């Protein structure tokens, strides 16, 4: 079993020839842990210790765990605030709570068994209603699966600060509460509403922010406050400047490069915002940025966690630690999470990320351990390799989009019977583009990968121009692809943006052929007076 061009260590491949589980399986059989459905704190502790041992054998590198037992009501609270233990006050979280409560109490929806937060220590909420087998499953899933994903995956490593997120939320909450006291709840709500509308396009995709502690954050905030305001005043000064020799009229385009992070642009360049309003925009942007990796790794994250709760508990069972009855309950929950209804079923609501992710990680293991001829052709670099190294590598270096395009195998496409449907509004009917056959594998895989691409999901809207010399109109351009229009509420978003910007805002649609067409314009009149007062103030400054 050795492959040409195999980039992983050959000795691993030979080792796996002798024993299927060379390093990870335990040899001795342990004694069965207490069974029964009631959990106690002692039991949770014991199970956690055993799970931790197995997780370590499989090389799962995690943050320290903080397991918190909560009630259903507290779980609904956690839902309402994106799972965060603390968050700023805003009506949208109340709305979310009420709707969760409604569906939960009427039995339309069960609550999650757990919520886990990307923080260090990694906080996992466990529901008190769970039985002991469920608690064990959830601990393996959240505290070792998700936790190691948070710590290992490149997107989380790059974009989120597990060490400081709780601190940042504390800062955000107290800052916003402070603003409400100073400027009134209505004013603060107005700004937050507007910023929330831009939150999904308030993300840096490439730049990476540095790490900072709470104290530094506070100090910097003060600094920013004075600095940014000064800068903005400078930028928008209307008094003719005395020209020095060699000075030239400002002629280039502003911004010099198109800016995709709308919220960032508003925070830095909106001429009329007060410094506290800029700080609010920053807070909303920061939190949007924090959740950005989660939106891109749903399949992987859930798949990884599911793969590990399954593998860890199965290993414990094989080691003789778990009773049959215990394992039955675990498997029952496990399989119900993995249900994937067919597209024509009444229960179908898209591809189940748990099912797809779990199947993919399991399939990677299969490709390594028992590759078929086809797998050698499709995955020459991993077929027959060390599965553990391969899954860790995949977990660390991919997001849903690239993970699928790299690892979705023909076998899985067949297992799921995936097919690609092309829906073009210029045609009378939809067309099946590709199915699970030799001709279609690549097309299906590409289409599925694109389906998880955020660039594909979120419209591509960028700030391209500010009319610096004229009426300060802010121009956005929407680069359309495949003629996909914006959803109709873009007009409301534009109103919010206009309010933040303080002057006219304009949205252009740029077609694939480069044609530009103005889609919408919002003009604000009622802020004019405030502008003048402020300009005068700016002019009087020495």
């Amino acid at each position: 079993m050795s492959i040409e061009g195999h980039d992983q260590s050959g000795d691993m491949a030979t080792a796996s020839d002798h024993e299927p589980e060379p390093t990870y399986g335990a040899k001795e059989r342990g004694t069965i842990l207490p069974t029964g459905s009631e959990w106690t704190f002692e039991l949770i502790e014991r199970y956690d210790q055993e799970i931790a041992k197995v997780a370590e054998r499989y090389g799962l590198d995690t943050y320290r765990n903080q397991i918190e037992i909560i009630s259903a009501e507290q779980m609904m609270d956690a839902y309402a605030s994106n799972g965060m233990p603390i968050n700023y006050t805003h009506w949208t979280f109340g709305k979310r709570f009420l709707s969760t409560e409604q569906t939960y109490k009427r039995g339309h929806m069960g609550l999650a068994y757990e919520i886990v937060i990307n923080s260090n220590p990694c906080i996992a909420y466990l529901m008190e209603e769970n039985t002991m087998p469920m608690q064990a499953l959830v601990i393996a899933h959240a505290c070792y699966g998700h936790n190691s994903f948070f710590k290992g995956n490149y997107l989380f490593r790059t974009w989120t600060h597990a060490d400081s997120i709780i601190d940042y939320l504390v800062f955000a909450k107290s800052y916003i509460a402070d603003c409400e006291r100073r400027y009134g709840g209505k004013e603060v709500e107005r700004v937050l509403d507007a910023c929330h509308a831009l939150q999904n396009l308030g993300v840096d995709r490439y730049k990476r922010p540095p790490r900072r502690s709470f104290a530094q954050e506070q100090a910097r905030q003060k600094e920013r406050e004075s600095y940014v305001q000064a800068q903005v005043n400078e930028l928008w000064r209307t008094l003719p400047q005395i020209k020095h020799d060699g000075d030239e009229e400002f002629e280039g385009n502003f911004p010099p490069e198109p800016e995709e992070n709308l919220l960032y642009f508003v925070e830095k360049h909106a001429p009329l915002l007060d410094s506290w309003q800029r700080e609010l925009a920053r807070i909303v942007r920061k939190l949007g940025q924090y959740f950005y990796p989660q939106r891109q790794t749903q399949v992987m994250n859930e798949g990884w966690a599911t793969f590990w709760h399954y593998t860890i508990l199965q290993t414990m069972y094989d080691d003789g630690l778990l009773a049959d009855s215990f394992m039955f309950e675990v498997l029952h929950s496990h399989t119900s999470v993995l249900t994937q209804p067919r597209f024509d079923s009444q229960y179908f609501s898209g591809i189940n990320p748990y099912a797809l992710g779990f199947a993919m990680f399991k399939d990677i293991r299969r490709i390594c351990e028992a590759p078929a001829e086809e797998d050698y052709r499709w995955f020459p670099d991993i077929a027959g390799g060390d599965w553990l190294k391969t899954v860790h590598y995949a977990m660390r270096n991919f997001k849903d989009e690239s993970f699928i395009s790299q690892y979705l195998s023909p076998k899985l496409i067949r297992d799921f019977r995936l097919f690609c449907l092309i829906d073009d509004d210029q045609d009378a009917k939809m067309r099946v583009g590709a199915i699970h056959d030799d001709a279609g594998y690549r097309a299906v895989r590409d289409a599925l990968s694109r389906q998880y691409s955020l660039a594909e999901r979120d419209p591509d809207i960028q700030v391209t121009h500010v009319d610096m010399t004229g009426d300060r109109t802010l121009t956005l351009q929407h680069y359309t692809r495949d003629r996909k229009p914006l959803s109709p509420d873009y007009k409301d978003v534009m109103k919010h943006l206009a309010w933040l910007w303080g002057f006219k805002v304009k949205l252009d649609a740029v077609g694939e052929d480069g044609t530009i067409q103005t889609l919408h314009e919002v003009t604000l009149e009622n802020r004019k007076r405030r502008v003048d007062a402020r300009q005068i103030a700016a002019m009087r400054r020495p």
Partner: protein
Amino acid sequence: MSDIIDRRDNPRHKSAVNQQRFLKRYRNQVREAVARAISGRKIAETDRDASISIPARDLAEPTFGHGRGGKRSIVLPGNKEYVAGDELPRPSGGQGQGSGKGGASNEGEGEDEFRFRLSREEFLDFFFEGMELPDLIKTQLAAIPQQKSVRAGFKTNGTPTNLAIIRTMRESLGRRIALAAPHKFRLRELEEELFRLETQDDPDQASIAELIAECEHLRARILAVPFIDDFDLRYNNRVMQPKPIAQAVMFCIMDVSGSMDENRKDLAKRFFILLHLFLTRHYERIELVFIRHHTAAKVVDEEEFFHSTESGGTIVSSALELALEEIKERFPQDQWNIYVAQASDGDNWDSDSPKCKELLLKEILPRVQYYSYVEIETEQPQSLWLQYEEAKGAAPNLALGRIRTRSDIYPVLRELFSKKLLAVVA
């Protein structure tokens, strides 16, 4: 390894403040929804939590996202018969769009209504903003539910102060008898045997000693039965029961003569509901008495009150007399807070109206907390109204209002129960 923390005792409703923000922001929509919800309920059923729905588009949080249209490819699982190139009709209603993500682009399309549950308190708060009844001294007590502790048998655990000694001793005695009985029987047998052996001519000393030893052993066993044991203990069980210290009776008086059509009755019902709701806010227990009248008055149940029709003339004083009788017989005023709500289209025999005023001023008003009267859908104030208006000068606990449409009810009630009135009364 891991830290395990029990958070179940931490404060719940962390998002309560957010909920309040939400209700405050959408106050108008919620108020309308509450009004809609109330019209479909019975008077006494109104005082519950309620599922409320408001149009989802009012609450939408807009974001930039993709809308329908253009060209897109969707990957779906569970292909059965399709091969590449097959064409299939586009499902109506936008099915098959679900690409596994919720949110982002489908905002505003999904549900038309945003449904949520208002607790009873929140629900009622929406109704009674700014309203207060006069004479709230008694009612203030009732607003805080008072409880008293009531005996409810015995239980096997509790605090030492609640130990039920007699019960415990009874248990103890029973247990001692039961546990010692086999030993006692055996002991008696052995003692008889011993006596027999000892009184024999040639006593067998060895067996006697053996028997004595066994007797000693049995006596020890009997003594070892504890005098009192954990499971003998019985405690007095007490449960807390709400203590109805304030009770009220509400008389609903309505004219059902031919001139009261369905629309007028509907308006009257809304008026009664609101008063009843307000009372439930302040009283533990509320009796409802429905009195309908045309030329003669009758006490009826709610169904009959609202739904059967009569024809004929109108003598209002018949209803007032009946109410007075009921008050005297069944609702002594030292035990009951009495409220009367009367609805009528104002029609009355001309000579009867002064009589009504007399009855009201001399007999009824001194006995009741509050008397409210609405005149429904009249062009001109009728004779009854005029008489009542005169009475009003002399009686601070009489309130009057004239309503024409549904939307008038609420403002009228507001006026009836407004704090302003309270201030005047005080």
